[in-house]
């Protein structure tokens, strides 16, 4: 029973994947998996917030077709990514390269966290008594004067 439910669930979730790429014939399951990975990671230059698996723009159709044919030619994942980058720039791949301009995406959060930590630690270690003592003294002086 349990296995039946599992296989039914599997069927349910796999149909989406199958319907997306059963139009293309691949020689092996690895190729098919690579196709699904790549079309999820490559970004459509026309509908800029979709990957080419989702987008219905003509260019996305053409890019899917090109990815499938490159896979059939036995190209590796990196080769296909480079092929697309050569035509559409770094924009086309959802993982930005580390350059002087993009390194801040990683550096800023770290700096921010470190800065926050330093502030918190300094707040903790700051002797609060000195200040309080000075104020009490000042208050005493005022009291003395008002007498």
């Amino acid at each position: 029973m349990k296995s039946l439910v599992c296989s039914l669930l599997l069927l349910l979730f796999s149909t989406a994947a199958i319907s997306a790429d059963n139009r293309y014939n691949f020689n092996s399951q690895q190729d098919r998996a690579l196709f699904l990975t790549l079309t999820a990671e490559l970004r459509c230059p026309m509908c800029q917030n979709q990957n080419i698996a989702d987008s219905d723009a003509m260019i996305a159709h053409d890019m899917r077709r090109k990815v499938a044919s490159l896979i059939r030619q036995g190209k590796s994942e990196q080769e296909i990514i480079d092929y697309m980058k050569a035509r559409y720039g770094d924009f086309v791949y959802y993982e930005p390269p580390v350059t002087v301009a993009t390194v801040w995406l990683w550096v800023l959060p770290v700096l921010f966290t470190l800065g926050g930590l330093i502030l918190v630690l300094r707040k903790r270690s700051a002797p609060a008594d000195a200040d309080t003592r000075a104020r009490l003294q000042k208050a005493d002086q005022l009291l003395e004067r008002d007498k």
Partner: protein
Amino acid sequence: MKKSLVVAIPLIIFLTMAVFLFKGLFSDPRALDSQINGKPLPQFQLPDLMNPRQQYTPEDLTGQVTILNVWGVWCVTCAVEMPYLTQLKEQGVRFVGLYFDQDLDPDFGTKRLIDVQNEVAEMLAQYGNPYAFNIFDVQRDTSLDLGVTGAPEHFVIDANGTVRMHHVGDINERVWNNKVGPMYQQLVQEAGGSQ
């Protein structure tokens, strides 16, 4: 002194962010860096749209400054710019069309060539014909190699066959006077005068 510095830090951060985000307001999110700029045309061998026995290669786009216009009959903006392009052609600007068809899916089913030709002939009769000739990008591979994202797009190509400008969108009077025209004139000068 030290205290004023500490107070100033959030202000500096805020100002930096404000400037950065303000600049972002005026940047075009759809603008992409063209990868083909400054590079020679990609290799291709494609038929003439109206006379498929005639084959073209990048060599056919050398020798004089050419504007390669990517277009299709299914593209509304292309129809809008066509009369203006025709005017430019009458002033001596050389346009070559790179035609691709939307309904022609290389994977499934194809439209007959004669239907495509009829549609094109009809449209050119209606809006004017700016093209010296039309290259038919049958599989849309050359468009992909050029980094085309849609239509219309224009590639200004110098006399040596190097792409010198990639303009996404239509050419109207404003675009011609401010962007594409000056580049075209400059390349004509480089090529040694008149076309």
